[in-house]
């Protein structure tokens, strides 16, 4: 067990120290979310009616959830690359705990997600976002985001190992995550959507997480958003972690 922990930390360290050395990748976690915040706030913001709060207050929790949902991209691209370059073979030929490759990825994603959250919150605070709740609630919201991001890592791990090239993984990821995050309460009130989309958005885990974070940060009514997002996150992990581990075993044994 201690081997699993130390191997996982070694893998996580590797994934984290290589990140700043891939400037294009780092842009994805830093400049790109800021750009999204500014575009949404100032291009769409004026046209979207958000009753009871300013659009910037409405937007920041939503855009942070989107950025977290995309947070596993480093995992998808990294695993795809490692498989192609034979690094997974090297790791498997070492007396290393089996689960450490995937676990190390998930831990590194937590670090990059934390970075994204901090950058987006600072951007938000600069352009007028303000918390309406106490520090405890704010931290609870951040913990929920990181937990949701952890689940997203396994979805992306599966994508990364299924895709034949990093470019393909990129394509699959975007095609999957964009509709899921847009047909939700992240950017516009659900009530403004056509009926069919409202039904989709109501069932969407992203909606639950966004609503729960708004509750923690803005004091909006939680409804069943908190437990629904926890159930969804646990379910995603329960489904995708074993699938990712199985795929890892078979992909690596090719």
């Amino acid at each position, binding site marked *: 067990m201690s*081997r699993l922990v*130390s*191997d996982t930390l*070694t893998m996580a*360290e*590797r994934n984290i*120290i*290589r990140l700043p*050395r*891939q400037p294009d990748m780092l842009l994805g976690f830093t400049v790109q979310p800021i750009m999204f915040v500014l575009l949404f706030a100032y291009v769409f913001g004026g046209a979207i009616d958000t009753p009871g709060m300013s659009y910037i207050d409405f937007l920041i929790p939503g855009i942070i959830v989107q950025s977290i949902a995309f947070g596993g991209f480093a995992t998808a691209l990294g695993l795809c690359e490692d498989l192609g*370059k*034979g*690094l997974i*073979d*090297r*790791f*498997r*030929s*070492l*007396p*290393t705990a089996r689960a*450490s490759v995937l676990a190390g990825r998930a831990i590194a994603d937590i670090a990059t997600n934390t970075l994204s959250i901090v950058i987006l919150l600072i951007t938000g605070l600069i352009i007028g976002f303000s918390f309406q709740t106490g520090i405890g609630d704010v931290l609870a919201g951040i913990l929920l985001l990181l937990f949701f991001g952890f689940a997203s890592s396994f979805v992306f791990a599966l994508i990364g190992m299924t895709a034949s090239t990093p470019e393909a993984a990129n394509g699959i990821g975007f095609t999957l995550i964009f509709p899921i995050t847009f047909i939700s309460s992240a950017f516009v009130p659900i009530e403004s959507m056509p009926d069919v989309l409202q039904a989709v958005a109501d069932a969407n885990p992203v909606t639950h997480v966004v609503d729960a974070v708004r509750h923690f940060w803005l004091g909006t009514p939680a409804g069943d958003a908190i437990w629904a997002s926890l159930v969804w996150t646990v379910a995603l992990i329960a489904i995708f972690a074993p699938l990712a581990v199985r795929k890892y075993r078979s992909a*690596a*044994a090719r």
Partner: protein
Amino acid sequence: MTQAPQTSGLAIEATGLTKRFGEVEALRGVDLRVEPGTVLGVLGPNGAGKTTTVRILTTLMQPDQGTARVAGLDVVRDAEQLRHKIGLAGQYAAVDENLSGAENLTMVGRLYGNKRGPAKKRARELLDRFRLDEAGDRLVRTYSGGMRRRLDLAAALVAAPPVLFLDEPTTGLDPRSRLNLWETIEELVGGGTTVLLTTQYLDEADRLADNIAVIDHGTVIAEGTADQLKGRVGGDRLDVTFADPAHASTAVDVLASLSSERPVASGDTVHVVMAETHGAITRAVRALDAQGLEADDLVVRRPTLDDVFLTLTGRATDTGDGKEGDKTDDQARQEVAA
């Protein structure tokens, strides 16, 4: 059913390994035996089963049938312990481009279970030894192909494993880097490491290997020392090229005295398997000159893997030119069986 541990004393012993991928039979019963401290060269064309064999022996893949022991440990049942005793350097230079050389080696050391301090120290030792000390703190993506291979080999040696697997270690390297890598491998073997080396190049196996196993279509079709194999392949080759293809066909008769086999003309070139290399060029030139045949080019070369395959299987390594292939194939198998 318990099986008493075998005490064969062999560093690598594989018996009847088979592996199938869907319709493809990658291995059809591979047997290998390697004495400790020696080098086995596994020679074969692409797709012959070399890499699959290495993957099974390094615990990356399980055989469908057959057994294998490396360093006395079963590759399936004792896989965990075995991973402490083997090093693997593959054909892809499996190192992280976005880490420095030192970081790569330290990471591998940590994954062997070493503490950070000793892992760093070992990384420095290996960087020195592989002439990467100056480049050790640079990112690997700035390295040349030869430097990456050296780093890859260094990574395989972090735990000073008694058995080392090198899967086509020099494929794609320029001649100078290749020579460097050969010297490094020779040093290792001098230190008592057992090495299994796969290669497509006969000269590589010839230089590095104590014994050679030739693999084709998932089975070992010939085994022996380099000299024994070359004995089957025949001596050095003389290739003479003429401007006029008609001269080439005439030259077949003229050059026949150099060889116990009849030379072969293909297009404007005559290929001669020389019975005796010593003085052969002089005799060839005199004979051609006496007949007024003017050669444009004249090359003496060592037998290549192509020649081994032509002789053992009756076909070239890549293009299956099936003329008299079946007959020679059977002959080769009988020879091996004998």
